[in-house]
């Protein structure tokens, strides 16, 4: 399924073959590994990896807003936590635990909260600067965390414990391999959706917006609307991850909404390499795995090592881990499917379009 670039098809004189696309190989490899992991791992490790997959979903939502739309959002945890709290309340007060209600509900809540925050920050007469959006989302996430800590109905500091197990009909989706595959399927589905989107002509518009936001307005793009759409879509994905997380962990707390998780997600994605979707997933997997092994024995020193590691990546390798494997050209990617039958250019004359 490697898309060689359009040019090689459009014009033979500039052959571009010979360059194998690396990202699809990485994607397929990860898909294969994580499909079989639960069969190999002990139960508690499967549960640990399930958490990693859910966090990868959250990192994906950040990669969409920053990597593809140039919106620096420190608020993804806000949508993640808001959806988590909402489904926890649904379970606690109304006894709703069916996956067919919980997941769509968390998606919708993530969407609504990000729509509200997005329209406040992004739309309006003065186009906002990146710094304003970054600080606006950071403040939104911070205020939400403090509200959750202070609001007694939400369990305040303690959050909402003992969320019942998620059900599908009468079947209980208990944590372990079952919940793992639920999270895995969701991640793959959302990943493919994002991949389809960013490689479409819409993706080209995003690439244009990311590189020259002011310029493309003069072609007729309503830049603020594009940003709001991506921001809301990413918010929905973050919400979905929040719902999955709440039922997997069995409780929700102010930590799920807070600045720490928001910033952590930013660092995950930057570490892996933004703007490539698979980069964000790799970033989460890499840091969580290393953190799992390292933290056991160097547990006092671990956060310092991590801080230094991230500082070095941001300073010297802005394209992240994926940047090591993949050329800049492939990182930007191609847009829209290549028309199947191609009009042979100049000498064979023009006949109908594809």
């Amino acid at each position: 399924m490697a898309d060689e670039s359009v040019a090689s098809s459009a014009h033979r004189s500039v052959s571009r073959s010979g360059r194998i696309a690396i990202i699809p190989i990485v994607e397929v490899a990860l898909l294969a590994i994580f499909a079989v992991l639960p069969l190999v791992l002990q139960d508690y490790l499967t549960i640990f990896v399930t958490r990693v997959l859910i966090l990868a979903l959250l990192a994906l939502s950040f990669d969409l807003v920053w990597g593809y739309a140039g919106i620096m959002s420190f608020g993804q945890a806000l949508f993640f936590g808001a959806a988590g709290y909402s489904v926890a309340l649904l379970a606690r007060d109304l006894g709703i635990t069916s996956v067919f209600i919980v997941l769509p509900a968390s998606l919708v809540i993530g969407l609504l909260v990000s729509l509200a925050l997005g329209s406040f920050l992004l739309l309006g007469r003065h186009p906002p600067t990146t710094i304003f959006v970054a600080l606006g989302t950071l403040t939104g996430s911070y205020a939400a965390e403090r509200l959750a800590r202070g609001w007694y109905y939400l369990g305040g500091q303690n959050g909402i414990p003992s969320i019942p197990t998620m059900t599908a009909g009468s079947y209980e989706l208990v944590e372990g391999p079952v919940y793992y595959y639920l999270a895995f399927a969701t991640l793959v589905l959302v990943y493919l959706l994002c991949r389809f989107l960013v490689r479409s002509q819409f993706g080209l518009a995003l690439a244009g917006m990311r590189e020259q936001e002011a310029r493309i307005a003069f072609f007729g793009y309503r830049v603020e609307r594009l940003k709001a759409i991506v921001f809301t879509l990413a918010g929905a994905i973050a919400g979905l991850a929040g719902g999955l997380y709440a039922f997997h962990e069995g409780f929700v707390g102010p930590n799920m909404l807070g600045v720490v998780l928001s910033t952590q997600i930013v660092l995950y994605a930057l570490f892996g390499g933004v703007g490539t979707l698979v980069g964000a997933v790799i970033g989460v997997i890499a840091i969580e795995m290393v953190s799992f092994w390292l933290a056991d024995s160097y547990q006092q020193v671990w956060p310092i090592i991590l801080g230094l590691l991230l500082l070095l990546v941001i300073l010297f390798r802005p394209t992240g881990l994926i940047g090591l494997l993949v050329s800049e050209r492939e990182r930007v990617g191609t847009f829209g499917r290549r028309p199947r039958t191609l009009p042979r250019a100049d000498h064979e004359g023009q006949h109908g379009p594809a």
Partner: protein
Amino acid sequence: MALLEARGIKKVFARLTALNGVDLTVAENEFHGLIGPNGSGKSTLMKCIAGAEMPTQGAIHFAGRDITAAPPATRARAGLSLKFQITSVLPALTVYDNVLLALQAQDSLSSLVFSRTRGPLHERVLHTLEQFRLAARAGDPAAALSHGQQQWLEIAMALAPEPRLLLLDEPTAGMSREERRVTGELLIPVKRRCSLVIVEHDLDFIRDICDVLTVLDQGNVIESGPVAQVQSSTKVQEVYLSRV
């Protein structure tokens, strides 16, 4: 009725008055040159028309509609297109994708998401590339083009959505003599399809392609009319001799 009518355009930056009540009229299919010494307000006027700047006073009508305060996207959809002074092609994207980006700008959201116009637009992209002699470089990233070629790409992108009025801000800046000549040739066929307002220092380049000239000096219009009339006007020579 003229395609573009700018009336009494005033623009004040803090204490500097860049434009001091300027009128500009551009008819259908007219090539209109905008000249004047540095700092005379040419670029500011272009930006006010294109929507990059908001005039402090005055009104701009385009094809009968008041676009004085309209955002750039609305003006583009009304048929007005701009090429910036500093080249702003998208370096990381291929030449082909740059043109496609401009072409698809006014498609509906759903057609973008499902790439429905990818096929139909392919034809126009190739045609545009050939018209601006960039067909051979379609697959290369825009950054790999020469400075002149990047300017052509940007003109191509500005023309791609088939605007009714094209604003060109110093298209030949930094070009070699040969590239200037080719640019002149490239612009000729454009006349059939849309009118043009061009800011340029190279006076003989302007003379070749423009029908009407407007001369600006320190934010005021000192002469406007057919090329021959403007050339012979003493006021213009005086300004050019003393300022340039």
